[in-house]
């Protein structure tokens, strides 16, 4: 049977390409030295975004920042369209032109991949059709009819992950334990994170009994790696000297983001977002060109959950908390 485009699209899942997908693709394309390379990168990045959207919809976690396709230099060194699937490996997402019968899979991505997804992108660049999946390739031109339905991709990801069942909820930081001096991995004092003696000195003047910890956050943007520190500072609404932990009912929490490099301001456009348990945005603030910190406050009572997202140019980190 000869496959036509219609057949390919019948088994395909068609997903929209958003303004943000386009903005990132354009930014990364602009870093390439030739028009031909820029077009290649633009399509590769769009294909990766579409597959990333699908995996996010399926609640399969990915790591865009660790993907070679997000690095202008590695994209210069090869025709790469990979998406890192967290703890599993690199999934190659190859763009296919509208009327093509084959998918081009360049030899530099034949090894070290968990498989290949063919992504047909329409000429208006509005939609991306996930045509199918193939685990291995032996030629640069693979006929589209050899691609299996997306269920094969899902099965492969499950097999590679083994019997491990994904947790229903990502682990949360328990703020109530902070009061007792128990801190999760990665949460250190701001002084430790900055490693600056003058800050250590200044810290002595802070009020006691206010557990404050910070975490280093890596954001990989098309402009390069940015390091910021998310600081969480909590205080009981009614502080009494003698029994700081007597009434955990109302807690006041201050969220702050500062640059990890004390000499520099925050990158403009950096967003700090407070989300409720369901992921809806409660409050948001964004750094302008001259800001050296971002700050939000949240009031809550024990066992209440919230999340904090730090985002820059499409790269984001979300931390979950239980009061």
């Amino acid at each position, binding site marked *: 049977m000869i496959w036509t485009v219609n057949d390919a699209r019948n088994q395909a899942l068609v997903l929209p390409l958003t303004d943000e997908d386009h903005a990132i693709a354009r930014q990364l394309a602009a870093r390439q030295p030739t028009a031909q390379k820029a077009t290649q990168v633009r399509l590769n990045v769009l294909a990766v975004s579409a597959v990333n*959207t699908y995996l996010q919809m399926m609640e399969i976690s990915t790591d865009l920042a660790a993907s070679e396709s997000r690095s202008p230099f590695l994209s210069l060194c090869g025709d790469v369209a990979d998406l890192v699937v967290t703890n599993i490996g690199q999934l190659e997402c190859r763009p296919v032109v509208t009327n093509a019968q084959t998918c081009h899979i360049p030899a530099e991505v034949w090894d070290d991949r968990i498989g290949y997804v063919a992504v047909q992108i329409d000429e208006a660049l509005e939609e991306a059709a996930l045509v199918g999946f193939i685990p291995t390739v032996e030629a640069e031109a693979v006929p589209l009819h050899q691609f299996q339905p997306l269920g094969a991709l899902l099965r492969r990801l499950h097999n590679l992950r083994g019997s491990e069942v994904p947790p229903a909820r990502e682990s949360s930081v328990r703020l109530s334990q902070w009061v007792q001096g128990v801190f999760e991995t990665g949460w250190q004092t701001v002084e430790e994170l900055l490693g600056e003696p003058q800050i250590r000195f200044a810290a002595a003047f802070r009020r006691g009994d206010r557990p404050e910890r910070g975490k280093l956050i890596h954001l990989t943007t098309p402009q390069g790696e940015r390091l910021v520190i998310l600081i969480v500072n909590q205080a009981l609404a009614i502080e009494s000297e003698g029994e700081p932990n007597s009434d955990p009912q109302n807690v006041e929490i201050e969220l702050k983001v500062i640059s990890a490099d004390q000499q520099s301001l925050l990158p403009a456009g950096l967003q700090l977002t407070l989300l409720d348990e369901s992921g809806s945005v409660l409050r948001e603030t964004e750094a302008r060109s001259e800001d050296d910190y971002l700050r939000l406050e949240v009031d809550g009572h024990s066992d209440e959950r919230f999340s904090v997202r730090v985002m820059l140019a499409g790269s984001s980190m979300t931390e979950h908390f239980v009061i």
Partner: protein
Amino acid sequence: MAISNEQQLVQLIRQTCQQPRGSLERQKGLTAILKTIQGKLWKDSSPHYQDALQRTWFYFCRNLCEATTAPQFDPERASVITWLNAYLKGELTKAGWQDGRAQQRMAPLVINSGGEFIDLLDTVPAPSDLPPMLETTREWAETDTSRELRRIHLKENSRVTCQMVILRRLPPETPWKVLSDEFDVPIATLSTFYRRQCLPRLRKFGEEQGYL
């Protein structure tokens, strides 16, 4: 799996939601439902349509079986299409309100006779303060101060050195097929050599230059 009527769709939704969240069967079910209903939702020419549609698909995946970001889908109250159209139209209306900002035009692509995409939009040139990555990399490979790139070669053919492969694969990329014919080495051998021997050295150089 072909779904031909509403009844079958309702049944597929019920079966899918019986599977544990995050399980392979749940994911396959959601994918099958998505394929069935795609193209059946409200469509208009709003510049925000694609963004609103993506939010609608997330809304679908998160709330079909459990209330995650909104109340759970209730098949007694509406069909899945009606449920999603209500959300999609709401998102489009919201986006319309915030329409103050200028829309970035999407550049069309055309396909040339060789079957390749050609970008009609002149690609935005890289800002001039950026280091000329390609030139710097090419110069590094050509100079090869430590002579390492010239020394490392393919067992099958000593003419295939790291230096040669790196230089020929930098833009404008020489097709692997051309290199394979020229040096009489299978494409897979060349590409494995590239990933195992050339790429780690390129990465090291990239790190030193601050490109990575």
